[in-house]
């Protein structure tokens, strides 16, 4: 599978009639804007002249915005007249307090010249949708190499067992790390990925999908080939860290969620976007397809779970079980983790005291037609609430049959029965926050990672409390490594 940004842009462009007249020369100009100009603007300008922060009333996050005058009313880009284009003249002015980027170093001549030439050539960007953010136009980034050794273990959020349960993949800094579960050896380092990895899913024995990015700047969902040891395709890009990824039960589609509140669903084989949606008011924290493939649901820091129709992304319903003012199970809490349950249902957990198992269709009926308030006060709907016994936010969950393993702020990993009233039980713990949990496909092993950068492997049969080691290529042996099997 190979993904080519140029090809994608051309594909998008063919949708418009104008494109039929695109000449060879214009095609080059188009490349010029996307490849030469947009990166300069994104790196140096949009922090102050962006979509939300618009100093001087001027925005540069899209081509359309770049062309619109700011508060001064003067033309930012006057085609073929760089001297009368504010964008250029403010970069070269000798008045230091006015020179852009304000309060920063002057841009190198090669960049200044690129801007000047682009304007003087007519400030053209044929085929570019003027409303699409420049960040999007630029497509996936290539990433610097990972450091050879780390000075300290970074916080870890992503962890996943291979299909045979023998290899554990964790996120590193600008890399994905593969560990042998039994020997604890670092099997492989796969670089060329974003600096933070927030989620990992194995597609098959050779391929992973990952979600990650650079906080506040960039995010991507990408396919990694384990054998080749590199990124082989990018499924979606985002303006902030991609926080979660889920694969449809038929293995054909991948959905990814982002810290900016958006979700994008992509066809795995072609990397073509099927739908995108931005209905969360805060970060998306987790994603899952329902077992029957009918729904995609995303959990959010905004205390709700959004359920989408998996085929076109329309919002099916909003589950408010984590945000209730009344009744026995009341409380308002962010939601952090989600998994499929039954055929159409989901299991979710976050702040609050319960792991909640629910069904989108019934949730819709409950919130949709509230004819009888009386009834609603007495019944708390269809949701099953299983108390997990933890205090503080719960960030991670792994499901084995009708058992949910959950962990979060306290570091304690709890085994919660979803089917019976059995009291939850601690199966292991870490010294600090746990961000990620995974169960091996055969359900025999549990892996946990968290703030301290330690990978902990626990057998689910309770025979031992497992092993733990620093899951990073740290220069000198860290003291944590001494925590061993008992």
């Amino acid at each position: 599978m190979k993904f080519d940004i140029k090809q994608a842009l051309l594909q998008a462009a063919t949708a418009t009639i104008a494109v039929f007249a695109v000449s060879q020369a214009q095609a080059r100009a188009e490349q010029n804007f996307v490849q030469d100009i947009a990166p300069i603007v994104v790196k140096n300008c949009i922090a102050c002249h962006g979509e939300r922060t618009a100093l001087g009333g001027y925005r540069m996050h899209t081509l359309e915005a770049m062309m619109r005058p700011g508060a001064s009313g003067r033309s930012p880009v006057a085609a073929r007249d760089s001297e009368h284009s504010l964008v250029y003249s403010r970069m070269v002015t000798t008045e230091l307090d006015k020179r852009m980027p304000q309060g920063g170093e002057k841009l190198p001549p090669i960049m200044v010249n690129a801007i000047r030439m682009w304007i003087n050539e007519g400030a053209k960007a044929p085929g570019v949708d003027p409303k699409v953010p420049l960040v999007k136009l630029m497509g996936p980034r290539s990433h610097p190499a990972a450091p050879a050794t780390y000075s300290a273990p970074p916080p870890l959020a992503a962890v996943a067992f291979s299909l045979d349960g023998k290899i554990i993949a964790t996120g590193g800094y600008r890399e994905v790390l593969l560990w042998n579960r039994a020997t604890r050896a670092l099997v492989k380092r796969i670089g060329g990925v974003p600096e933070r990895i927030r989620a990992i899913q194995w597609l098959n024995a050779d391929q992973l999908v990952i979600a990650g990015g650079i906080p506040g700047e960039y995010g991507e969902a990408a396919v990694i080939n384990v054998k080749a040891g590199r990124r082989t395709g990018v499924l979606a890009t985002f303006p902030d860290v991609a926080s979660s990824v889920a694969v449809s039960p038929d293995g054909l589609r991948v959905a990814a969620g982002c810290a900016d509140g958006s979700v994008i669903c992509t066809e795995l084989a072609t990397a073509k976007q099927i739908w995108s949606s931005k209905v969360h008011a805060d970060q998306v924290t987790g994603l899952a397809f329902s077992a029957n493939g009918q729904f995609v649901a995303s959990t959010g820091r905004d205390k709700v779970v959004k359920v989408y129709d998996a085929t076109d992304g329309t919002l099916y319903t909003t589950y408010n079980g984590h945000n209730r003012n009344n009744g026995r199970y009341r409380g308002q809490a962010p939601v952090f983790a989600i998994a499929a349950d039954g055929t159409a249902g989901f299991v979710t957990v976050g702040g609050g005291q319960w792991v909640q198992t629910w069904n989108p269709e019934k949730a819709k009926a409950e919130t949709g037609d509230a004819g009888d308030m009386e009834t609603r006060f007495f019944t708390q709907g269809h949701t099953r609430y299983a108390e997990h016994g933890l205090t503080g936010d719960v960030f991670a969950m792994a499901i084995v049959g009708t058992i949910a393993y959950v962990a979060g702020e306290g570091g304690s990993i709890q085994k919660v029965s979803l089917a019976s009233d059995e009291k939850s039980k601690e199966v292991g713990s870490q010294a600090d926050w746990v961000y990620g949990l995974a169960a091996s496909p055969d359900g025999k092993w549990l892996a946990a990672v968290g703030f301290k950068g330690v990978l902990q492997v626990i057998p689910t049969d309770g025979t031992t409390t497992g092993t733990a080691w620093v899951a990073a290529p740290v220069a000198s042996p860290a003291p944590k490594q001494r925590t061993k099997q008992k």
Partner: protein
Amino acid sequence: MNSALRISTLLLTAAVGISAVLASGSNPKPVVKKTDLRAYSTNRKLDFVQDVVPVLTKQGCAGGSCHGSPQGKGSFSLSLFGYDPTMDQRALTRDSFARRIDTFVPDASLIIRKPMLKTPHLGGRKLRPTDTAYTVLRTWIAQGADATISATECTKLTITPSTSQILASPGKQLPLRVVAHYSDGTSRDVTPIATFESAHPAVAKVSANGLITGTGRGQTAVSIRYLQHLESVPIKVLGTVKGYTWKPVPEVNIVDKLVNQTLKQLSVTASPTCNDATFLRRVTLDLTGMLPSPETARAFATDKSADKRKRMVDSLLASDAFARFWALKRADLLRVTDERMPHGRAALLTKWLADGWKTNRPADVEAKALIATDGDTRITPPANYLVAVTTPDDRTEMTAQTFMGTRINCAKCHNHPYEKWTMNDYYSIAAAFARTETDGFSVTSTSAGETKHPTKGRIMPPYGAAKGSEPANRRQTFANWLASPANPLFARTEVNRIWAELFGRGIVDPVDDFRASNPPSNAALLDMLAKRLETNGFDRKDIIRLICNSQTYQRSNITDAFNKNDDALFSHAKPRLLSAEQLLDAIGVVTGDIKTDTDLGPVLRTLTSDIDALRASRASGYTTWLDGQKARYASAAVVAEPWQLFSQPATSIGDALPIKDITKTPDSQWLERDDVKDNQDIRFGHIKGGVYWIRRVISSRVAQTMDVNIFPADRTAVWVNGKIVPRGDREKRSLPLKEGVNTVYIRCDMPDQFQPFWMRYRDTCDVDMSIRASIRQNKNSDDALLAAYDKSDGNLRGLLQNQNAFLKYDRYATQRSEPRPTQFLAAFGQPKRETACACERQTNPTLLQALELLNGSETYQRLGNISATYSALDDAAFVERIYLTAMSRVPVAKERDAALAFLTKAGDKNKGRIDFVWALLSTKEFLFQH
């Protein structure tokens, strides 16, 4: 900066005048002991709490409008000004999957990129490479971003210099040095990471490194914050004023001496004493809310005795009008309204307050009664204070604002950002109210009930009690501390409120915002008055008398170049627009719409004799009437008894008792609410939101279906004789009544505490609810029956109402016991009594006010009385009388001539007179108290 603006900022500002510094009169050099100090340096392992948290405050990140707000900003939430380092540790290092810190590339950390605008940041640029804060953050991250919260705490802050400072002229500079002392015995110079703020940058500004520079003459305070320590250094900036000399004015008492001291120091002159007419109008309006009568004005003008002003103050202070008017002011603050209290209690409490002013009830006695009283609100009026303020939080905030002049509400969620009030204080005060129960009608103390600290979870000891001991009565113990010299704010707040009533501005202003960063404009004056109140047995009239007799109070509003811009040092009188109530009454009196006491004598006598005559003529009909009532009661098809409220509300449906248990509860658990009429709202708001059971016994002569409307239909469930009654159309329910006694139970789920409940139905018993109890008990004569008999006659009812209104001074807005809002009063700023803040009374002039005066129906209606009121007077006498009434003086020759010429020329005599009065009512001399 021009001199006018400079003086104005000078006078706007305030200072704590420490006399030692005042006496020195020079610019003292800061003394810094260098021996025990280490200069601030980042070449060491930085500490999260000691180094990083203060920097977040300094750069503004943790401010109340940014990430320090309760919801944070952009999912990033810090504790306000770093009051909770654990929360900051969580937010910086762990929250959002540790996205904000990058120990591999420290400069790539979100907490550095965002404020430096390398990544879009809605808050703008907050960090520059040259800032110490940048070095601190970067170094801390490079060192591994260790956010361990060490056990070492900052115990004290030493500011050098620490006392009040004087800068000889604008442009002079003064460096501040801030040293933090830690619990491990070390100390460090933290000047570069402390936060500095000047209350009035137009007087003195302060740099990020604590260098103060005088910018204009005046008084300000520079506050210094480091972690939870807040200190304040008062600054005066002096300067010579060309041509200024102090012109001596009489110094009658200590008030004048202290006021003049400050005036001289800041080169401000004092205005001379005002004339008799101005004084009389001013003091009468201030003390009684009403204009002096024309007779008083004339007599005062001709009185030649030297002590006439003193005697006038004494006689006004002794009047009922004074007591009623000052009760209104306090009732504003205590939120005395019928909406918050059971029917009629607002008037009772207002009357109790007025009695207090009349009998000169000591301030501490009054405060203790309001806070500590138990009992039925009908019998013990001050208990209504706690009935009106239902939650412990509200009680804490109201009490602090009313009696301590402190806005403590910030400390509910975090330590107070501008004052030393902490959450511990807040919840300790709340704990003092924890063992208090109100059912809407009475206040009782209980032996159980605790308040928990919301974040630390521990049970708070009640404020004012000795450490570790449980007082017999928490509220009483707290009240005893509150209203005593042990609480320095009580007397200060009380005298400051009095001062503000008499001058239009407090010595501390706003009057209920005492804090280090809002110092008094004359500290010595405030100290003296507070001390005097504490030592005179909390005698408030003594304070009012002292102030009213001072030359300062009696100053003219005429100014010269050296005091015209002063509005905080009391160098001259400040004209004030009459308050809403004062103005409405003044217009009423001038136009003759309100009958004055002089007019009233004969009217009241006539009324009383009419009432007596009518009663005598009806006396023989009483027995027949009573028999009729009894017969009606006996024959009614349906008789509903008063509402009963179950005394234990639940917080949610889940907690509420089920119906089967409710039907078994003994009668003692039900409170009878005979004051709630049918078709009237029951407001459970007197208590709090929750689930309530109410019950009503309805006797029916035959088995029948009674249709009633019950609101809100979707939040109520109804049972008759144990069987649930389904909901009908909208609010309708059909109650199946059996022959005999039926019991109706209603469960109301009222999450909103102000949601009203009502039941509407046609009571076929036309016997007034007020006498049903008497009839049931087969009484032949009691107060209720006699009153009902009186009321059954329309004429007598009207006469009694008139008599009552006259006796209660109901016709005066400044004198009546309830606000009775009108459009006119609202336009002129009558408060709705919704908060404990004195600021609720609006004093700014508005366009609406001009319209009310020029075109408002309330003004116009009153003007219609003029011809009748003054028909006996010829034009000359009419003009003089109007001037005397409206302005408390006779017209000067020019005014008289112009008025007479106008009236002579007018075609229609009445219209001419109306126009003349209307014009006079629009003059500043009338509208203002000057």
